[in-house]
């Protein structure tokens, strides 16, 4: 297949990349742009490790074609910190030991950021729903909730735009696998 030129906005920078049109955003981020912070655990939309934000909404980059999102703003874990200043979620994840192996962490951070940007004071249920598409095999999720709660407190001290509806993830994986009822 022939490569095509794409203009992608990632973490505030515009990149022109040549990529196979059938290659996913995940592949282009990792292989063409060297942004290996975005992870993959299945490339089938099942694990959430590849979650990035597109215009602030959490999206599975393994199910997204870059051609579809030209002009949109992509945020990866590399773009989470504000210059040298870490995002409150990054600090809270460190302090609460919410990252063990760290592999689901980039996707988890971005899913959590989307939640907090829309809902500055989420309940545990809100959090469980927001990260239901992000599998973590290490933590049992407890420390992740504690970290999101901690970051929410810090972020509320620095108010941002509020009042928007919490974004819903696109795709099929944002659900219980074991029959849990959504509240």
């Amino acid at each position, binding site marked *: 297949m022939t490569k095509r030129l794409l203009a992608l906005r990632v973490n505030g920078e515009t990149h022109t990349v040549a990529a196979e049109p059938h290659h996913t955003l995940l592949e282009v981020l990792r292989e063409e742009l060297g942004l290996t912070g975005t992870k993959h655990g299945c490339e089938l939309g099942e*694990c959430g490790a590849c979650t990035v934000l597109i215009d602030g909404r959490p999206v599975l980059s393994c199910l997204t074609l870059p051609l579809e999102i030209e002009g949109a703003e992509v945020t990866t874990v590399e773009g989470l910190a504000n210059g040298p200043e870490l995002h409150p979620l990054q600090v809270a994840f460190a302090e609460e030991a919410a*990252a063990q*192996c760290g592999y689901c962490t980039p996707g988890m951070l971005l899913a959590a950021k989307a939640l907090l940007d829309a809902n500055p004071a989420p309940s545990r249920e809100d959090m469980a729903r927001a990260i239901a598409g992000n*599998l973590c095999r*290490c933590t*049992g999720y407890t420390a992740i909730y504690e970290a999101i709660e901690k970051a929410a407190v810090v972020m509320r001290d620095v108010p941002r735009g509020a009042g928007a509806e919490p974004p819903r993830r696109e795709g099929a*994986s944002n659900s219980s696998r*074991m029959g849990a009822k*959504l509240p």
Partner: protein
Amino acid sequence: MSELSVIGKRLPKVNVWQHLTGTARYADDIQLPRMLYGRLLRSPHAHARIRGIDTTRALAHPGVVAVCTGADMPERMGIMPSTQDETALAVGKVRYVGEPVAAVAALDEDTAYEALALIDVDYEPLEPILGIEEALTREDVRIHEDSGRPANVFKEVHLEFGDVEGGFAAADRVRDDWYFFEGSTHAAIETHSAVASYEGDGKLTLWTSTQVPHYLHRELEKVLGMPRSLIRVVATPNGGAFGGKSDPFAHEFAACWLSMRTKRPVKFTLDREEVFYAHRGRHPVLMHLRSGVKSDGEITAVHFQSYLDGGAYASYGIATTYYTGALMTVTYRVPAYKFDGVRVYTNKPPCGPKRGHGTTQPRYALECHLDKIAEELGLDPIAYRQRILQPPDSRTVNGLRVTSMGLGQCLDEVRRATGFSERHGQLPRGKGIGAAGSAYISGAGLPIYWNEMPHSGASVKIDRGGGVTVYCGTAEIGQGSDMVLASVAAEQLGVLPEDVHVVSGDTSLAPVDLGSYSSRVTFMAGNAVRQAAGRLRALLAEAAGERLGVPADRIGLAQRRAYDLADPSRSLAFAEAAVLAESKHGTLMAAGSYKPPKGIGGDYKGAGVGPSPAYSYQAAVAEVTVDLETGGVTVERITTAHDCGRAINPPGVEGQIEGSAYMGYGEAMAEEQVFRGGLHKKPSLLEYRLPTSLDTPELRAIVVETVDAEGPFGAKEAGEGPINPVIPAIANAVYDAIRVRFDETPITPAKVLDALQKGKARVGPDGLGTRGDPKAALRRLGATTAAREKKRAAEPAGSPGEG
């Protein structure tokens, strides 16, 4: 021990920042110039002879650079030197669907994938063996013709300790139960990945997501026929492992061979389906447990039998087999004990170690069994366990040395935290609470290959600016080993963990550590680092003492300062003390090592599995709600108390306890290794049903500290033991809710509903061979295999197994 300044403090892990900023470099993140991409061709057959492999068409495909097959690396290999029954790629025969047969290196991954369909393999399908009973009885179908054992038996173990016959004769009651524990897989979110680079100087480097760089180093030497001195293995940060990355794997050998052939770096990254077939997960085990007890509950004798479904190859199976029996004696007093274990080969992905290795299944059986005995005797299940505890500083009947022992405290803690004794047996129908206890090793007492060398070595260096570097061969698999090593060094030297660089998992840079398996790292590598750093501490104290005019033993080291213990206002900066010490003694670098003491186990054949320098102990209470109409079980809360000796990093210990409870919950309720004609029925993260955030119960972790006399600063393991009590606690809670005993896992809504509708008192096996007529099962499997083959023949190209 004076006050500790680092150990026990709630500090962030030293390596966490890379994880949080996307800069941690996992194996698949490595990109090297001129790198090729590899893919494995996998068997579509569960059992077949390979009559021939023709790679001509694949080699001619544009973009393909090299291809290899089993004939290129025919040397036998396997993690346990005594049972090496694998080759890097299949030679002559395939024994499970998904077994690697050939490997391709190409300019890009798409081309490598296309080339797989151009490798022509001529298979002669053979009848597959897919269950324990068939494997034991089918002499006519041999998975390993040269195994030297009857039918498809891999290993048989028979051990007897104390007066078993007399013990049963002296019992007031004898209880017999059968149990079945379903197999499960690790499902680390990072799939296996490796990059090999053969350089112009004839040296080979392999970066790989492995738990066991040292053991892999040995196997690479053997299979590649290349001196180990020319090979460097670097364990990259593992994106989760849980035991699943502790065998040598086909893609690691293929990457090396193809890199040596092409003189270019080669990367292999498995896809998710391949990981399900690479497996090495928890063995399905059928178990029979017979105990004699006095009327007060005192155990007089135990006879335990286990039948392990090992899958197609040995992996750690010889150790797994022994582990099903070995630790049954370290929790409660057992004066007489008989153990019979059998592991069989089947045509399924090989089983191996998963968190709790070989002890999780028998622990489930024993703790459910004790719950029944407590009920028969009218005793509170926790009070009963506390009455029969194995004492600290004792020997078990099978010769294991028990030292610090916090099971009683753990049981107290979970009882208090949950109000167990007030609620057990008192809740309305549909609500239940259950308890269990357990134990695990803090590292195996013996290495997997016989030698007298240390199990763990470390070196510590201090630079002139006050920085500290720890070098140790441990693999950081997410369990927090780098933080443990940094904390131990920092405590010894009086700096902070953030001042410590950890170089781990690199066979060229770091002294040997046997690897991140059997929960050995905190205890063994922690002691090695403690010794190395202790040697430097003595030099610093001497130099600082001279400067301050006080004896070296009056020097304290903490918070980056060396100070007079009698007058802390008199002090030097750590970096200044380091300069004085280097000026006096030369370069500040010291080595340390650890080897478990001798005499901690028995001296019989098979005594090598079970001994450990210390056992961790734990107890769990599960609270459940059963929907009587749907059979759905909601686990509301799991409370686990764990005796880790001392928590070097409390958030790290709590994380291991919570993660274990989560993983145990998934195994208890949903995960299944089910196959159709050798094909995995659920080889994806959606179908395999791992608990998501919406499924996971509330998890509470309680840290119990017994301060072990031999552990580093008193520490024992935390990574594996806490899974063990969770699963039986859930089964016991379900019984408390609906009076149905679940003597098999998983406890699915379908099974619960069926039991409720039919008024069953119990769900589980009744013995060997009663899980359906094996011949009938075979006929069914034969029919599905034939149907599958027919369908495959009708399809143009590709197959699920070739992914």
